[in-house]
């Protein structure tokens, strides 16, 4: 198979980074940031997800089509969330 070969070092580095980020999520949760707790938590989670997608799932080394598929599913998720929430956010009239 012509798939790209990622070295073990990269896998271990990414795995380590994920664990660090996970500890960071827990740590930050214990600091009161007001409404920003959720923002930070989601930002870290998204970053972790991107790490998994890019390295563990090899998207970084994949064809354009794979990129398109990944971004499309993300884009559609955003449509669902944003348009649904737009109703609830502007209800007060």
């Amino acid at each position, binding site marked *: 198979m012509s798939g790209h070969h990622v070295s073990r070092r990269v896998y271990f580095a990414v795995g380590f980074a994920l664990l660090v980020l996970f500890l960071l999520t827990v740590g930050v949760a214990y600091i009161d940031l007001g409404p920003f707790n959720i923002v930070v938590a989601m930002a870290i989670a998204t970053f972790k997800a991107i790490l998994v997608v890019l390295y563990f799932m090899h998207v970084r080394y994949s064809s354009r089509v794979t990129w398109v598929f990944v971004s*499309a599913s993300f884009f559609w998720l955003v449509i669902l969330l944003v348009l649904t929430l737009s109703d609830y956010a502007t209800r007060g009239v």
Partner: protein
Amino acid sequence: MKTVNEDALQKNYITAAYGIRSWLLTRDHKRIALLYLISITLFFFIGGFFAVLMRLELMTPQGDLVSAETYNRLFTMHGVAMIFFFLVPSIPAVLGNFLLPMMLGARDLAFPRLNLLSWYLYMVGGAYTLYAMVTGGIDTGWTFYTPYSTGYSTTNVVPVVVGIFILGFSSILTGLNFIVTTHKMRAPGLTWFRLPLFVWSQYATSVIILLATPVLAITLALLGVERIFRVGIFDPALGGDPILFQHMFWFYSHPAVYIMVLPSMGVVSELVTCFARRRIFGYRFMAFAVMAIAVLGFLVWGHHMFVSGQSVYAGMAFSALSFFVAIPSAIKVFNWTATLHKGRIEFRTPVLYAFGFIGLFTIGGLTGLFLATLAVNVHLTDTYFVVAHFHYIMVGGAVMGYLGGIHYWWPKMTGRMYHEGWAKFSALILFVGFNLTFFPQFILGYLGMPRRYYIYPEEFQVLNVLSTAGASILGLGYIIPMIYLLWSLRKPRTAGPNPWNAVGLEWLTPSPPPTHNFDKTPVVTEEPYAYEEKSAHGG
């Protein structure tokens, strides 16, 4: 008299193997297409039967034929059967399955086993839903609005929902198969902009199926959880929000309209070019328009909810976005019309259906503008205007395209020609019957007759009688093709590989095609719809 040696008669996909096992375990996309053809036709006539009973009841303002309980089950089961079990699978699962690999120059879909699994999932979901219908039915409307569906209806809501949930996976696997096949299995030289528009439309449809169906699945699953465990997800009495159900439901169900009509648009592009002997007008615009509809179709679901209690500002955003969808649809209609310019139009049955599609879809689309307009929608929504509008799109559009496609590719699928006279006659009958059935409903709607009423004020009777009269003609128009198409199977195979003298890879193989479609993988060297070149070379 034997004119041809038996061995020289190439084995085709139908004669390749005999016996029930060879059909039920087949992985040939063409055989699976035929399995679908039979199954969805069954559901079409079941759904049609419910429609007939409804129209009969509506001949008089009183409830004299059926009771309220029965009528509510009739329109619900009509909707469920027609939408989920006929329209959504119709063109993709039958024509798409049969033609997509051939149009791409491939031997089969990328995942033949998944394809067979899709059909089995369809059958399991269908059988389960049928069982639920027979043992009491369901009366929530095909929209399953909460809290009625979760807390109040005493009918078989959960079984029907489970049936549709299973069916969803059937759709998803078909869509997945089409997308991968289109990406990875195109013949040499067949670039994206050499694809027939039918393939583009199947691709766009598959994108919608893949991204919308899972949301329906989870919505129905949550509905089931609420109903079974009596916990509040959507029922306000238990702490939920019914509007959220509507958002999630329409996130699927509005794009689902495009699942039904986009494939028909693809069919119409094939038919118009073939019978006008013309290249399609504005090929790239047509391809982009299909993809634009697929994307924009996801941004407009809130226009089903203008009076639902949704925020006023969200309503405005959804309304504005809805008008954007009209643009690519308008492009398509104009381009089909322009394709006829300087053509050599031959009036065969398939193209009559295509013209029927263009006319009826135009009316359906233009009345869609009425419903996208906020203030007008307030008056029209949940009336017969909406009923008429979506039947113009889904029956006038999707079914006309489906029947046109069936007539066009019937010789390819079976090797037989049908009786042209009867076919033209029934196309005409369908067109007249359809308009007589549904046009009066626009007026009824503007007058204010709400949908899902089995009794109504007397002043609405004349228009309802007209509609019922039209429905009887329309029903005839659906039965006649059944008869002459089946009849044609008794005749010898005379269609030849290319009875319409059409271009496109599917016409390069014998009719019916051999199991592997092509003896030698075709190489594509020209643009699609090269009809002018073909005539120039005396083809």
